[in-house]
């Protein structure tokens, strides 16, 4: 137990790095995903194809490969980013693709009659989306968003490939230093706590956004 208390401060530092990656990715990739999905359901064939291609690339290659790409390949075309930012760019671009598909499916699940009613009430595109469509979409997409968010908690451990001291890498360093696997167990507990918090949070959100269905 003593040992646990000794390593916890170090591991909390690792948690902070992981949490930063998590939070910044969520905050940036969700709005980007919304924009991409609006393009994906827009009338423009060209836009649909371009975004479809983007989603294919992002979902079709490993996130780790994308992190390497941003870190090692972009400098050769003159874009050089620090470690942390490199990882974030890859995370945001990758997760935006997944969120785009979630939002697209949500938007397409709204019956055509909702758009027609909005049209006959004189609403423009923005009013229709903001007031009528998106509030209903949120209700539909919360479960898959919750899924994706929990996946992200664990995906943050991928930043170790850029030698960043996140929770996972900190744990591994401690295990190698002390020949003791306890840090792995502590790391697991931290990940589980994060997931538990998200699970409870999303349950509340789901309840809130589905109140009109009860």
């Amino acid at each position, binding site marked *: 137990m003593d040992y646990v208390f000794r390593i916890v401060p170090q591991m909390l530092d690792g948690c902070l790095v992981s949490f930063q990656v998590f939070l910044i990715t969520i905050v940036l990739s969700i709005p980007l995903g919304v924009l991409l999905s609006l393009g994906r359901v827009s009338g423009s064939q060209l836009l649909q194809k371009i975004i479809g291609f983007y989603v294919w690339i992002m979902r079709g290659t490993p996130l780790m490969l994308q992190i390497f790409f941003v870190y090692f390949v972009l400098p050769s075309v003159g874009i050089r980013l620090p470690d942390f930012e490199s990882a974030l760019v890859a995370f945001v671009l990758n997760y935006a693709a997944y969120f785009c598909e979630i939002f697209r499916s949500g938007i397409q699940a709204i019956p055509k*009659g909702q758009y*027609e*009613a909005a*049209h*006959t*009430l*004189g609403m423009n595109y923005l*009013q229709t989306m903001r007031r009528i469509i998106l509030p*209903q979409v949120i209700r539909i997409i919360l479960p898959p968003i919750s899924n994706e968010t929990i996946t992200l908690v664990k995906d943050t451990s991928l930043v170790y490939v850029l030698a960043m001291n996140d929770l996972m890498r900190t744990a591994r360093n401690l295990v190698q230093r002390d020949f003791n696997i306890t840090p792995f167990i502590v790391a697991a507990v931290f990940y589980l706590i994060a997931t538990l918090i998200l699970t409870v949070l999303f349950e509340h959100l789901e309840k809130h956004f589905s109140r009109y269905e009860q």
Partner: protein
Amino acid sequence: MNKIKAQNIWKKFNKLEVLKGIDLEVNEGEVVAVIGPSGGGKSTLLRCLNKLETVDRGTVVIDGEELCHETSVGTEYVNKNDIRRIACKMGMVFQQFNLFPHMTVLENLIEAPVNVQKRDKAEVIKEAEILLSKVGLSDKRDEYPRKLSGGQQQRVAIARALAMKPAIMLFDEPTSSLDPELTGEVLKTMRELAEEKMTMVVVTHEMGFAKEVATKVVFMADGRVQEQGTPAEIFDSPKNERLKAFLNVILK
């Protein structure tokens, strides 16, 4: 004065000609019932009036304002903002109600008057409450649509359309998805509206309504207006063969 004037309306879905040169005139205070077999283009015609469907050819004039006019190559619409403005001169009631499920009854009513017409919210709420009592649903003010029966939902939909103070009301088979025992309450609301001299176009299979409430009946089949006239002319002395056959089947 003409509230609606549609001339030579043509509309094709892929290769299927749905409307083949329709003319329709609706005067102020008239209640026009559009009847005819399914697939005859009734709903499509209605949806062309507020540009839920785009016409391929023809002219549509609503309340003295041109929505689109026929050109040598088909038709030309006015700009987007004018389309929106003209379209919401007509309240529309759908077969599937299309209430906004995430809003309460009152929120459904006030949404567009407040956010589109930018009217004073307190004023709009007051009027919405009067409309709700008119359709007999004051007690459902704060319920979500899901909690209401089909007939109640449709009456809310009528009230929502009326909250925009439309010049014309369009009804697209308003009772077709209702259980028989619920159609009465919706028809009663529509009848009251007709008595207040609201200009109405009603696509319907309710022959009783067409007979008793309509001032003009339009019979459509195969994308054409086959015959039109007063309810007495249409139901008691039909001339068109298709109309006679239709009435034979429907009135047995």
